[in-house]
């Protein structure tokens, strides 16, 4: 059977989200913690809007983003070395090249 993947980083499917909703996780924050969507390398840039739309439709059109999950640093995953004042690994960006334009 076909699968609809909503969160690519953490491989969370539409089915996973619906199951979580059925289990009682019916706000964005709880859904996020229960399924793990938005917790991968893109930190929700690709999926949060989709999940919000799905959640809203499951709740009969309710506003689910009036109090959205807080946006926090970092905008792009960045090697710890840089914050530690090291220049090594500055050019290394193995897994999220497309996310981090600075690296190109």
């Amino acid at each position, binding site marked *: 059977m076909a699968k609809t993947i909503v969160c690519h980083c953490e491989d969370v499917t539409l089915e996973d989200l619906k199951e979580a909703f059925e289990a009682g996780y019916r706000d964005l924050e709880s859904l996020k913690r229960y399924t793990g969507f938005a917790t991968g*390398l893109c930190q929700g840039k690709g999926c949060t809007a989709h999940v919000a739309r799905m959640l809203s439709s499951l709740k009969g059109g309710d506003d689910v983003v009036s109090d959205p999950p807080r946006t926090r640093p*970092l905008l792009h995953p960045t090697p710890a*070395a840089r914050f530690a004042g090291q220049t090594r690994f500055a050019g290394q960006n193995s897994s999220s090249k497309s996310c981090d334009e600075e690296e190109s």
Partner: protein
Amino acid sequence: MKDKADLVIIGGGVIGLSLAYHLAKMGFTDVVVLEQGFLCFGASGRNGGGVRQQWSTEENIRLMQESVRMFKALSIETGYNLWFRQGGYLFLARDPETATGLESTIKLQNRCGVPTRLVSPTQASKIVHGLNTDGVEICAFNPTDGVLFPFPALWGMAKVASDLGVEINTFTRVTDIAAKGRQIVKVVTDKGSIATNRVVNAAGAWSVQIAKMLGVELPNKPYRHEILILEPTKPFLNPMVSDLSNGLYFSQTMRGEICGGVSNPDEKSSMDTGASFDFLRRMSSAMVAVLPKLASLKVMRTWAGFYDETPDGNPILGRVNQIDGFIQLNGFGGHGFMMAPAIGKMAAQWILRKANHQIFSKYDLARFDRGETERETFVIG
């Protein structure tokens, strides 16, 4: 929502839920839990998941031995996998005074049956490959400490408690508590009122505000504590590593991420949960200094929660002088999560008069007036 209850627990964090869970298992289910946000909203959903038995007082050591036993059983009991992994805790001491302190606390821990041992820097680098032991005097390692994933512990205890009849209301904010003389009459929320004579204040960083509704002044102060998480990588790090010189701690989660934080002696008490660049800088520097190979891993995200701190570093438990039936379970600083199983069970036994645990009189609010305080010295972060 129910309009009356035998007992109302304010705070759906790990302390309040552990109490509700144990009360329900003992057959006492006319209980309502009130949580202002979602479950995991407060510090219970924002901590590093560390569970250790390396403490400096016998009381805390024994409390944590019991909590470890309980955490080990909790996944089976609740049907929610806590991912509790006993990879140990490795503490690094960098000065002679800290090293001497470790030696005496290890003796005490050993007497209680905790298998902590002193390890040389060379032995430590065999426990954690790539550990930079420059400047490390000696280490303490207890293989039975561990880390867990906080969220399922809350969900699991909430599920069992609620299946047994406890009512758990999320997104429900307490706006007032009404009393007549010494007696509590009702708890008022933004979703309605609940008539009750007994209220447990398990509101963590919000406990002071709750107590104020009954005219009770708590000395607790909330402090922001930031954490970061690095991208997932192959499992390679067994223990939680903690540097006693700066309060650094980090471990690897079961998803492969490195998660940790560091003390900030300059942090002022506030209700701010914002992120700071200063934390990113201090944490990354401290972490990379101890384990240089982490330098290449990317920081994915930071977040913050609260330490609900008391003047002596011990929680505030039990009754207050001014109001009957107003029970405190707060002020756990940065270690409420790990102590919650034992505290919740003991509080349930104490409330139901099944056992008279000394801690509920020893650590009551009035101890500050009596001047009977003692400081736990093994506090991290």
